[in-house]
């Protein structure tokens, strides 16, 4: 891999200036590499992170299907990676004007990585550097424990999509309830431990206010002393609570890391390092897969806008238009994230420009009135920057896939059915309703199952997992191997409460029914019981 030449770097720096002028924000430093085919051969199994740890599965053909994205929290081939400095990759034979377009696209991605709140946990760290440390760590472990390192990676990767990504994001933003003694006393101790009524709690608050009023210097200490005298267990409870807050495992991987009797044996403690590496890697990629549409939409919006404003490459508009159209045209069949994302960003800009992001507009009923509504507020730019800061694919789709939007772009849900007479598979217009289009979009988003640990039913020999049913059953053929892997990490039986969907026939046809089941892995075979 070599850096792009000085001429191209100069173009990039020019792009940066112009992008900053319109309000994009990103670090000044960035690295651009030219990649050859053989570079790609090495980079693509490592999801474009050159320093990613080695794992044998990456070296062979992994059975891939359309469903693959459900398994991995990352997009396979990024042009730009979210590192510090941001690294991007280019063909060495791109003409200058095309590089300008790609640079703007890349800069918008970098702006998105560095400003969207879903990436907040990646801001203080350079993943390329951390991955290198992890890679060395794993290599060192391999030297000591041989193939068992690869087995541990394998088992850990079986559950790396179940990481608590959103709680991790939340951690720093949680209000500090119960972090100091007073707050713990009023918010938790009185309510949960002593089960005081509202009236009694108000009385306590009044007592506290009186104490402060009568002696502002030591009032609080006096008040707390009284509590401790009255409830001798208070201090212990508070300490317990603090410990719990710090240690509470937030997901299955952490739970296994902290509680597994197998991993807690002194000879197996090294496996925890591997688990942490796999978990952190997964957390790092998590925001990327959840912002595919909005990120591509944002980048497409800016590459178009900035390219057309750029005075350096006049005369290439036709060639540019051709490529731009192939990237951002809405597909006849299928979902193009560039196209949908761009249209949604433009939609929000348009809504805000006309003042339609207001209650005044929302309460309007008539189609004509809604169409012609225009307050000329010109808040479009502001609105899309808010979008870039706070929205994910789901929130973007959920908030802005309106009937107006669907109609404007002739969007539809296409169904596929069998036509017996003609012996063909037919593609037909199933719906043009915004609600159904939205559901179809949401359904195609990455969404790993929510699986938690039931700590009450869990002991050294049994790990009890609960899958929250969201109208979809788990993919059956993968259950056994996944449970075996968890079993290896726990060193005991694994129980999974989940739901099967069965078709039940009745007089007027058939319907789907949820049946709650308990699947148990006892170390050698699976057993399924209806609950």
């Amino acid at each position, binding site marked *: 891999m070599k850096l792009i030449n000085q001429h191209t770097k100069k173009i990039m720096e020019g792009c940066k200036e112009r992008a900053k002028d319109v309000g994009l924000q990103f670090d000044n430093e960035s690295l651009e590499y030219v990649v050859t085919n053989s570079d790609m051969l090495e980079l693509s199994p490592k999801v474009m992170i050159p320093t990613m740890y080695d794992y044998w599965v990456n070296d062979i*053909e992994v059975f891939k299907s359309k469903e693959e994205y459900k398994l991995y929290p990352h997009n396979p081939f990024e042009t730009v990676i979210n590192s510090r400095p941001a690294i991007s*990759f280019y063909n060495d034979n791109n003409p200058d004007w095309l590089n300008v377009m790609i640079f703007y696209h890349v800069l918008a991605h970098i702006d998105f990585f560095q400003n969207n709140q879903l990436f907040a946990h990646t801001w203080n760290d350079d993943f390329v550097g951390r991955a290198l440390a992890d890679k060395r760590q794993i290599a060192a472990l391999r030297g000591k424990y041989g193939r068992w390192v690869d087995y541990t990676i394998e088992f850990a990767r079986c559950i790396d999509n179940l990481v608590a990504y959103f709680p991790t994001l939340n951690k720093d933003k949680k209000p500090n309830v119960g972090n100091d003694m007073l707050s713990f006393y009023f918010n938790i101790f009185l309510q949960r431990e002593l089960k005081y009524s509202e009236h009694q709690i108000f009385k306590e608050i009044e007592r506290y206010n009186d104490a402060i009023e009568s002696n502002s210097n030591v009032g609080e200490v006096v008040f707390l002393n009284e509590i401790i005298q009255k409830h001798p267990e208070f201090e212990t409870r508070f300490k317990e609570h603090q410990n719990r807050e710090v240690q509470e495992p937030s997901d299955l991987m952490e739970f296994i890391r902290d509680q597994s009797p197998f991993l807690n044996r002194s000879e197996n403690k090294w496996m925890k390092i591997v688990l942490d590496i796999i978990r952190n890697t997964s957390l790092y990629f998590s925001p990327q897969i959840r912002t595919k549409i909005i990120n591509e939409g944002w980048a497409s919006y800016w590459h178009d806008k900035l390219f057309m404003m750029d005075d350096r490459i006049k005369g290439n508009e036709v060639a540019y238009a051709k490529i731009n159209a192939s990237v951002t045209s*809405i597909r006849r069949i299928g979902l193009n994230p560039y196209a949908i994302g761009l249209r949604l960003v433009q939609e929000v800009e348009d809504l805000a420009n006309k003042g339609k992001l207001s209650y005044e507009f929302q309460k309007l009923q008539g189609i004509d009135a809604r169409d012609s509504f225009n307050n000329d507020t010109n808040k479009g730019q502001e609105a899309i920057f808010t979008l870039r800061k706070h929205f994910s694919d789901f929130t973007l789709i959920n908030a802005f896939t309106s009937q107006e939007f669907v109609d404007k772009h002739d969007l539809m849900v*296409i169904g596929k059915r069998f036509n017996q007479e003609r012996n063909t598979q037919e593609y037909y217009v199933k719906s043009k309703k915004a609600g159904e289009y939205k559901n179809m979009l949401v359904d195609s988003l990455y969404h790993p199952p929510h699986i938690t640990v039931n700590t009450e039913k869990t002991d050294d020999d049994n790990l009890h997992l609960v899958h929250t049913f969201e109208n979809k059953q788990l993919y059956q053929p*993968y259950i056994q191997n996944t449970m075996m892997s968890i079993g290896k990490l726990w060193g005991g039986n694994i129980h999974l409460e989940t739901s099967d969907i069965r078709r039940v026939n009745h007089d007027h046809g058939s319907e789907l029914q949820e049946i709650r089941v308990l699947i148990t892995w006892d170390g050698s075979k699976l057993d399924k019981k209806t609950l």
Partner: protein
Amino acid sequence: MKRKYEEILHELIKEGVDSIEIAKIQWEMELDCEHTIEKLDKYNNKLGLYEYFDFNFLQNTKPNIPNPKMDIQTLNDLIERDKQREEDGLPRRIRLGKIVKTGPKGSSQVVIVPTTVETKFYHDNSITEDDEQQMGGAGGEAEGDVIGEQKADQEGQGDGAGPGQGGGENHDLSSDAYHLGKILTEKFELPDLKDKGSKKSLSKYKYDLTDVNKGFGQILDKKQTLKNIVKSNIVLGNITPGEEIDATKIIITPDDKYYKILSKERDYETEATVFFVRDYSGSMQGAPTEAVLTQHLFIYSWLVYQYDYRVTTKFILHDTEAKEVDDFDTYYKSTVAGGTQIFPAFELVNQIIENEQLALKSNVYVFYGSDGDDWNDKENKLTKELRKLAQYANRIGLFVTRNSYGGTTSQTTLEKSIESSNLLIELRDKIKMDVIDANDISEKQIIETIKKLLVQ
């Protein structure tokens, strides 16, 4: 075709088959459609949401995936590693014998690659209230309008591995198969045939213009000679690379002349003929087909290795009728449809053996794979054909993959009729049968079934 099924069904009802049988037959009739090899069309090229990425769309670069055709050394390493896994108490991970489609725009190549899967818990989107797939799109049509169609059995599943996929140019399997056969024999401990049957053939020799010789010979190889002249003259300094050649300066020595010369070549004669027969009716869809094809690919590879390439293969597909197809590619990729009657397949095999007098010339092996479903065969035509075939064949292997429709625990029609005919005991040296649950297949199990079918 449909008419014919209806006639058969009508006859069966007259004979008084039970209602479960009729339900099964009707279900298969619903699946009926023309047998064809899938072709890619524009609807098959639709991409999923997460298959769009900047490299492809902005820079028009398709990132390379590791070349699936591995050199045999690496494959050996992988299998060695897999064996180690077993000793460590873990299931094997490497799967062999997948056929993948590579190359641009629909052209395909058949290769044997090691594959694996990484399993995780994830939501299964395939179950929906109306059993219809849905996707996004755009256009001016009204709700309910049909906007496109494709032949029912040309369902493409994109790049991937598995039966009924891929299409296009054929590819010679035998060199891949030989290596796979070697691995299967050595690593998976498939039997090494000591006695390769009675029909040993001696190698014949023929003469062909295949060798090259410097200085003299039958035919001048002009291209090679010219290259040599240029080479020598560069050394002599008469030609400077990059500059125009002055022909008057060029010197030609006798040693530069290359000739093709007549040479003795070994001509192999077939020692074994293998019939691969499979059911490709509607009920075979999915897992059963996958299991049967993987097994047949392994057996084929094993035989190619055992007989040192001297194997001829015949491929027969059947639903209610049987037909011979030209090559493994077609055999592998033909997709499923229609109803099931087994006996016509064996009828056809017998016919071919008789017409071509194969039994006299070579060792005959017949391997049959099905989900065990057979529309009522009151006259026992199947067992008659099998008895006849047993006279010719060294081994008949019947492989049943019970699928979920018929229930995986109860005996299938085929199993019942084979058992009641007592063939497995009467002709125990010739006919073997093995049964497997189609929904729970692993490479190891398939190897086990092959061992059972091949046991001496």
